[in-house]
């Protein structure tokens, strides 16, 4: 008699809801044709909202299912919220864009939703193979999304590059998992943490090789330097809402698993990993910011800036304490709002075909469209970390925790990077306010769906910046359980 694994479907209700919605979208796409397909996005919207309710119902739970492979705790649920917010914003960013670029089809929403399912599994995974599974479910739709603008060479290039790099990264990841399994005999996080002790690396150096390869695998996805080379081309080539999605949700997913894996599962040997993360953080922040300085294309500039922002979150990962994790998650929240807003503005100010996305095409925007210019400035200020916006409190929180944990140099390098970044974010503002008018800014239309996304993002950016206390408490509530067992 074979003993069947205990399957507890209730732990993955949100995933199931999204999955069913995705299939519903695909089926609806078969029956609705032509220009009347816009309501398809409403199905996706409804699914996202229902999933959010399901997550809300699970809040406070701490259960595992699938023989311990999946865990539902507040930490995972917080990330699921972030993914849903990311998907929601992307949805609002996409509808008008897809119509403008004549790309509207049901598959687009299907891919977004499936990718969200992968991310949710990733954030809930309590085991390495499940994490790999989640990563692949997340990644494959992303490859397709990058190449969604089939007629454009850039978009095809983006898809191919992303696919090759992603496959390469998955190779690293699975190889690393093999090392860990080989030396420890388990892939379950709870068992790993029990099996490890502070001198494990001395007795079994293979563990270090394994964990390093796993970190490299995720570092590709989260775009840490030096594993970032795919980012600029993919971000530039992919349709802009997809780029926005890339810069928010998969990044958050990568951090979801990295925080859990490194600061919980591998906590006994975290001290040895901290230096590696320190170096990665400095490289990611500095290289991202320095290359962003020279960019002329707004999407490329935001691509490098998103690398730099991952670097700030890496600082909080390198701290390795519960407080550090809180600071990192808070930053992710702030980053989601401000980056989605910035990409929303790029879509709003773009034109069909997106041939000219240089920063200089925003010249003199403030004269004809003062509200648009002011909103874009808000997001730029926040990304640059200027008070009183979300970006400031986020950075403050990270550097503050870095200093309290003794990482003073990391904090100093961080703030210097933050000053460097001011230069290129300000350049956008200079162009909008202080340069002569460019031809491209004469016509700007304001589609309602896009405005919803931008207003949501602007509200988030300001609210997190001015009244961060509630957000901080919310994040503490979600992180506190993660470290209780340790």
């Amino acid at each position, binding site marked *: 008699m074979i003993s069947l694994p205990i399957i507890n479907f209730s732990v993955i209700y949100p995933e199931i809801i999204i999955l069913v919605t995705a299939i519903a979208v695909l089926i609806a796409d078969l029956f609705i044709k032509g220009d009347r397909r816009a309501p398809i996005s409403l199905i996706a919207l409804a699914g996202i909202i229902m999933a959010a309710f399901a997550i809300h119902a699970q809040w406070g739970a701490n259960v595992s299912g699938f023989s311990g492979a999946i865990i539902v705790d507040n930490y995972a649920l917080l990330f699921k919220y972030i993914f849903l917010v990311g998907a929601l914003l992307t949805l609002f960013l996409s509808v008008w864009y897809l119509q403008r670029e004549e790309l509207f089809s049901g598959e687009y929403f299907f891919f977004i939703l499936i990718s969200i399912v992968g991310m949710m599994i990733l954030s809930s995974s309590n085991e390495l193979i499940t994490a790999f599974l989640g990563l692949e479910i997340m990644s494959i739709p992303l490859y397709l999304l990058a190449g969604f603008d089939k007629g454009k060479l850039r978009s095809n290039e983006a898809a191919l590059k992303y696919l090759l790099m992603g496959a390469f990264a998955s190779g690293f990841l699975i190889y690393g998992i093999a090392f860990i399994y080989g030396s420890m005999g388990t892939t379950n996080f709870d068992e790993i943490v029990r099996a490890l002790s502070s001198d494990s690396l001395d007795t079994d150096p293979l563990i270090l090789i394994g964990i390093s390869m796993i970190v490299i695998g995720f570092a590709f996805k989260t775009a840490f330097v030096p594993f970032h080379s795919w980012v600029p081309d993919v971000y530039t080539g992919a349709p802009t809402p997809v780029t926005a999605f890339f810069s928010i949700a998969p990044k958050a997913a990568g951090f979801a698993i990295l925080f859990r894996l490194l600061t919980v599962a591998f906590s006994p040997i975290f001290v040895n990993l901290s230096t590696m993360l320190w170096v990665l953080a400095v490289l990611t922040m500095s290289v991202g910011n320095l290359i962003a300085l020279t960019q002329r294309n707004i999407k490329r500039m935001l691509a490098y800036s998103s690398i730099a922002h991952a670097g700030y979150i890496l600082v909080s990962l390198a701290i390795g304490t519960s407080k550090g994790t809180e600071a990192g998650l808070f930053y992710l929240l702030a980053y989601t709002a401000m980056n989605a807003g910035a990409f929303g503005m790029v879509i709003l100010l773009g034109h069909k075909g997106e041939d000219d996305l240089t920063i200089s095409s925003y010249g003199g925007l*403030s*004269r004809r469209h*003062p509200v648009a210019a002011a909103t874009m400035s808000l997001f730029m*200020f926040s990304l640059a970390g*200027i*008070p*009183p916006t979300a970006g*400031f*409190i986020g950075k*403050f*929180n990270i*550097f*503050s925790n870095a*200093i*309290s944990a003794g990482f*003073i140099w990391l*904090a*100093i390098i961080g*703030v*210097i990077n*933050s*000053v460097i970044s*001011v*230069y290129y974010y*300000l350049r956008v503002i*200079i162009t909008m*306010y*202080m340069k002569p008018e460019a031809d491209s800014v004469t016509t700007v239309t304001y589609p309602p769906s896009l405005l919803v996304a931008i207003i949501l993002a602007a509200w988030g950016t300001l609210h997190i910046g001015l009244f*961060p*206390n509630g957000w*901080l*408490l919310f994040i*503490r509530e979600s992180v506190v359980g993660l470290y209780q067992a340790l």
Partner: protein
Amino acid sequence: MFSSDFPILSVITYLPLIGVLLILMIDKEKVGAIRIVALLTAAINFLFSLPLFFACDPSTAAFQFTEHVPWIPELGISYFFGIDGISMLMVILTTFLTPLAIWASFGSITEKVKGYMISFLILETGMLGVFVSLDLILFFVFWEAMLFPMYFIIGIWGGPRRIYATVKFVLFTMIGSALMLIAIIYLYYLNYQNTNIPTFNLELLQSSQFPIPINIQMWLFAAFALAFAIKVPMFPFHTWLPDAHVEAPTAGSVILAAVLLKMGAYGFLRFCLPLFPQAASEFTPLISILAIVGIIYGAMMAFVQKDVKSLVAYSSVSHLGFVMLGIFTFNIQGLQGGILQMINHGISTGGLFLIVGMLYERRHTRMIGDFGGLAKVVPVFSVMFMIITLSSIGLPGTNGFVGEFLILLGAFKSNMVYAVLAATGVVLAAVYMLWMFQRVIFGQVDKKENETLLDLNLREKLILIPLIALIFFIGIYPKPILSRMETSVKNLTAIVQQKFRVEEDNHKIRIISGTPMDKISLNEVGEQKNE
């Protein structure tokens, strides 16, 4: 005058934002209405703040009109406003000059008036927030946020090299403040680990039972001082100032000189000295020497300028050198003189920038060589120009004299050599200012364009008259202002010198282990210091 729970400081700080909201509702073509709303908002704000001068109790050094509510308790950050005799004067200086600066822009700013007035009012909120914040992070928020309205004012309405100037201005300030942020956070944790009180509250940090070790104090002081020294600006961090001043529109220059530069000096007074008194005394020689270099260098650079505006800008470097020298004497005269000179510089240099702006509006040039003999063409203008010039030089009877005299008096008490060197700055100031004045105002009218210049109109006269009235008032009767800051200044010197004395006493006791005679001499030392 105010009931104790009326949040007067918040009202003053955020009132300009109400003006912003009103302006936002006005169509951008209705320039007149926008200007009036902006001017009225700033004027009403001045009227609101003026009672503070009389209501502020001069007999206590404690913070008054405090408002204290938690803002981000999770991070130990509170919303803490309050003023003492020093910051009260800065608040009133700000609210006094802002309406004048806005009024002065009526003639010069004709494009994008809506955006300009919005920026200016937001700037006022930022500046006031800096002066009334008593929580380090709250202070930092205003300190950084205040940069950007000024960034827009210089960058949009400035001269030909405005973008270069404004980016330089922002980046210089931000580099300094980035390290200050690290120091603030470090200070917080240092205090938290040793006293278990998580707070950025200045009052609590200042009265903390935990004495910061001197080597850490030095680092923290250096980080704070860099941020403030860039803002002051002290030599050699002054290079952004001439660029920013020359490119900024008139009103921008006025506010930049009159208020923004004072934030640097104010930062030293409010944060550096009380939080790190020992380090401050260790750094005194360095800062005093840089201040003196600034005095002489600024004066010599001013001497060779061909553009009146950059001459005034370099004279600011020189004057702010005096302020810093005064502050770092740590005696009452020097500190009072330094603070008074902060106000004086606001009035005199603010006035000079207004004068230069009026000249520029008429001739569209600021080159000294393009003028000459203006006394015959525009007599009222010339007289007002002369009064403000003399006040900038520090002629007895004007405000400048009182400030510089007190600073030099304080400097003589602490270090004779510094005083002698700094005094040369006074002479140099007379030379470059008078020489410039002579070339612009006296002599023959040898340029045809100058013959038809119009004299000041009513608006321009009304802008300059309050400044001139204050020049004479402070020059002849400075007591009301000095007496209001006196207690706060005494408190400040007591904090700094107390630490001196503790150190010196320890030193003495170690050398002369306790005979009765020595104990007497020890008391004497204490008494001398108390004077």
